[in-house]
């Protein structure tokens, strides 16, 4: 187990370093803006604001948040403390809501949409790919072109097709939103039903694309593994096919876990297209409107979240790989 501990510590050290770098960049970038960053932010913000006391309040709030009157090191400490407290200041485009408020209102929509979609797409895609590799023949002949089509369709293409067919033409599902805009969010059955109905099209648009990509990847990995020398050897030692198939799919699945971690880690940008086309109230659309509206504090906070999600996903991935795939550990320890 010593080998694994070393591996873990090495990966942990790298994780900490990358987190610190990402964090520091997030700290430095606004401060590289020419002139007083606070003045610049507030000036942009004040464009749409008529009340002078509001502007003044925002200015003070940001001076305190950025602590520009203090030495850089103190600023860094204050920034760190603010981030740990979830205090990112006010959103410019949605003033007077705070950034934390805007994000916490939208991030769950994204997670609730993407997480199940990725998992379902991954499981279904990998199962289909494995079956295609094992059965070949007719099943493969159908699955391969369909998967190629699905995975090569741009995300907006898939979302648009579903939208046109099921929302516009068939009218089975609504065209946009996370729930019926006439409703007030509550714990009622009507509201839950509305959420479920609105959920379907964005969900399936992500699931279908994920299935296509995963099925193709799994199919070729499994075909490769099925032809590996260890399969032949195991057969000629009399081991049953049902057991050998298990070796094969386990080995073929290992690289596929990278795809899973990648999708989970980049969930926010992955959901962007579906969220925009279906006007889904998630973090993706929030980020987009923040960028379009020059909402600096919101951009900064979402960037930090997106970066951290990716870093955590990759860290978790490497830790997991070290445990389940002896090849990785052996390669790392040389």
């Amino acid at each position: 187990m010593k080998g694994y501990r070393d591996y873990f510590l090495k990966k942990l050290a790298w994780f900490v370093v990358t987190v610190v770098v990402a964090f520091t960049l997030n700290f430095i970038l606004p401060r590289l803006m020419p002139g007083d960053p606070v003045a610049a932010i507030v000036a942009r913000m004040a464009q749409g604001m008529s009340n002078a006391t509001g502007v003044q309040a925002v200015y003070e709030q940001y001076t305190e948040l950025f602590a520009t009157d203090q030495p850089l090191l103190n600023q860094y400490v204050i920034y760190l403390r603010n981030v740990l407290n979830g205090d990112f200041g006010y959103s410019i485009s949605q003033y007077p809501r705070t950034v934390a408020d805007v994000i916490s209102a939208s991030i769950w929509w994204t997670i609730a949409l993407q997480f199940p979609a990725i998992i379902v797409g991954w499981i279904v895609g990998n199962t289909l790919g494995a079956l295609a590799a094992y059965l070949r023949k007719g099943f493969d002949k159908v699955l391969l072109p369909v998967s190629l089509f699905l995975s090569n369709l741009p995300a907006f293409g898939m979302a648009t097709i579903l939208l046109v067919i099921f929302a516009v033409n068939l009218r089975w599902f609504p065209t946009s939103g996370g729930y019926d805009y006439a409703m007030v969010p509550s714990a009622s059955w009507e509201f839950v039903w509305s959420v479920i109905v609105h959920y379907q099209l964005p969900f399936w648009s992500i699931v279908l694309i994920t299935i296509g990509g995963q099925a193709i990847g799994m199919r070729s990995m499994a075909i490769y593994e099925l032809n590996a020398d260890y399969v032949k050897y195991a057969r000629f030692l009399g081991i049953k096919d049902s057991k050998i198939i298990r070796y094969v799919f386990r080995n073929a699945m290992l690289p596929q876990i990278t795809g899973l971690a990648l999708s989970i880690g980049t969930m926010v940008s992955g959901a962007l297209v579906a969220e925009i086309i279906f006007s889904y109230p998630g973090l993706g659309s929030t980020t987009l409107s923040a960028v379009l509206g020059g909402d600096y504090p919101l951009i900064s906070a979402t960037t930090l979240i997106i970066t951290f999600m990716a870093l955590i996903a990759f860290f978790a991935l490497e830790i997991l790989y070290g445990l389940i795939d002896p090849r990785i550990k052996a390669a790392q320890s040389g």
Partner: protein
Amino acid sequence: MAKTVLEVRELTTRYITRFRESIYAVDHVSLKVDEGRSLGIAGESGCGKSTLALSLMGYYFPPLYYTSGQIIVDERNITGMDPDDVRKTILGNEVSYIPQAAMNALNPTRRVINFIEDVIQAHRPETTKREIYDMARERFELLGLPPEVLEKFPVELSGGMKQRTVIATSVILSPKVLVADEPSSALDVTSQKMVIKMVMDLMEKGIIKALVFITHELPLLYNVTDDIMVMYAGQVVERGTAQETVFDPIHPYTRALMGSIIVPEAGLRGVKLAAIPGTPPNLKRPPSGCRFAERCKYAMPECRAASVDLHETKAGRAYRCIIPEEDLRRLYKNEQ
């Protein structure tokens, strides 16, 4: 008379390619290995040695297909047996195998002991883990392998160690016959020696009763096996004891083969003679006459006329040539 452990009669198998072409890589091959004896099979790359190794175990899967002939293992004809039965009762249990690519023969994500467990349980499902571990440990120790290897993943082992692990795993159930397909070819000289010694030990220690050892280096066999069979383009071209075949070859191909290889023997070291000119025939469309005629120094027009039979000599040897043994010897003598 010694008991025959493995007998193959006129076995023919073929590959069927994606383009529906047949490649007869094993063409009416017969062989016999008695208890306590070892048979070496030599020939150039592509002559069908590996295919013969796979074919004589009696279990086929695409693209390799059985065509005709008989395989008799310990007085039991396994040719007509249900493939699942062959797999359960013969493979790994009565006839075992060391593949040519032994380096990649182990599943990289399975510990050696777990793989051995799978092998044993495939044949003796009632064996407990404890018994399996004891069996494996004992066998590894007997063969001079450290038992710690059992707990390792194949990636954690060196090339030579992986090879030896594969050998030990192949004979875990003490099969009657072991078919070793170039077990030492991919290794450095030191590991080669170790592996060859290990394979010979299997016979000496009584773990296996008979050995089939395949190599493309004919001279190597002289030190390893009792008998030798030389293959060319899917057919047997010469058969005899190792001594006779190496030092007194009958068939022009065997003779050429002896001269085309760097001989690792002291004295002969470094004497590299020219490789046999020309290339073996395409097995998709083998020539109708003698298959070696194209490259044979002594070929005559008659050689290409009709297929050539394997002739048995009085001394119990066999060769596939239309020129009689004595005439061939005279031809060889005149050359010197």
